[in-house]
């Protein structure tokens, strides 16, 4: 008996930010992340009949996205492979340089911090998903995208005092939610 329903009309509002944040931490390029998220929704739409309702819509979309990310890396790695074939270390001056180029990346030292930050990022997006949509939109625009108060007010047709009331409610709810799940 399927427990979860599927409704592609709501995918963008409900899951696009979560999927985007998931992708950006893995591909580190905004445009590519946007494309991968868009591709995921389109692929999800095509394979809707495969959705059995055993997992949530979001989990199902994430599993499609994971495959898209793997495909992306496979593609760029195969291009890189071609480039490496053309590399030459035959001359006396550069002989042995390939050894230096293959030493461990010193930035790996921060890998654990990055992992923790990814988890925190997911916790933040989970909490954002629990906010009423208007609160979530205003909070994201102000706090994450860093938009000016005036820009948000014009875009959403609200007054500055409305904005601050919404921000206050959103911040209180976010702190409550993160306190339960993270702090």
């Amino acid at each position, binding site marked *: 008996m399927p427990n979860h329903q599927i409704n*592609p*009309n709501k*995918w*963008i*509002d409900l899951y*696009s*930010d979560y999927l*985007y*944040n998931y992708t*950006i931490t893995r591909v580190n390029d*905004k445009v590519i992340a*946007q494309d991968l*998220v*868009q591709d995921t*929704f*389109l692929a999800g*739409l*095509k394979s809707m009949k495969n959705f059995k309702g055993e997992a949530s819509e979001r989990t199902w979309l994430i599993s499609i996205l994971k495959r898209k990310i793997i495909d992306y890396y496979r593609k760029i790695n195969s291009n890189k492979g071609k480039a490496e074939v053309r590399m030459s270390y035959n001359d006396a001056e550069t002989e042995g340089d390939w050894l230096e180029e293959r030493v461990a990346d010193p930035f790996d030292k921060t890998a654990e911090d990055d992992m923790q*930050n990814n988890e*925190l*990022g997911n916790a*933040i*997006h989970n909490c954002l998903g629990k906010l009423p949509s208007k609160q979530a*939109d205003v909070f*994201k*625009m*102000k*706090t*994450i*995208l860093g938009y000016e*108060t005036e820009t948000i007010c014009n*875009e959403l047709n609200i007054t500055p005092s409305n904005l*601050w009331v919404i*921000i*206050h409610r959103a*911040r209180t709810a*976010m*702190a409550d939610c*993160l*306190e339960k799940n*993270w*702090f």
Partner: protein
Amino acid sequence: MENMKKSFLFVSCDEAQHLCDKAQYNEASLFDKIKLNLRLSWCRVTRAYYKRNTKLTKKINEANVDCLTPECKENMKKELEKAIKNQAS
């Protein structure tokens, strides 16, 4: 005169929380900050709110979270709606 001074610098708990929110986005003026700090010096409720609010800002900055712009979402919606229509026909 004393009362005037008091009301001039005094903010309620709700107002102090509003100033605290503004301060998280660097939108509190110097005068706002003075009023907030005065309230923080004696009000436990404001202090607790301030602590949680600052922690929230810190965690969001640490996490380096990102999200899509409204314009980008709108474009995605259009693309998806088009695909839904094509699939239905």
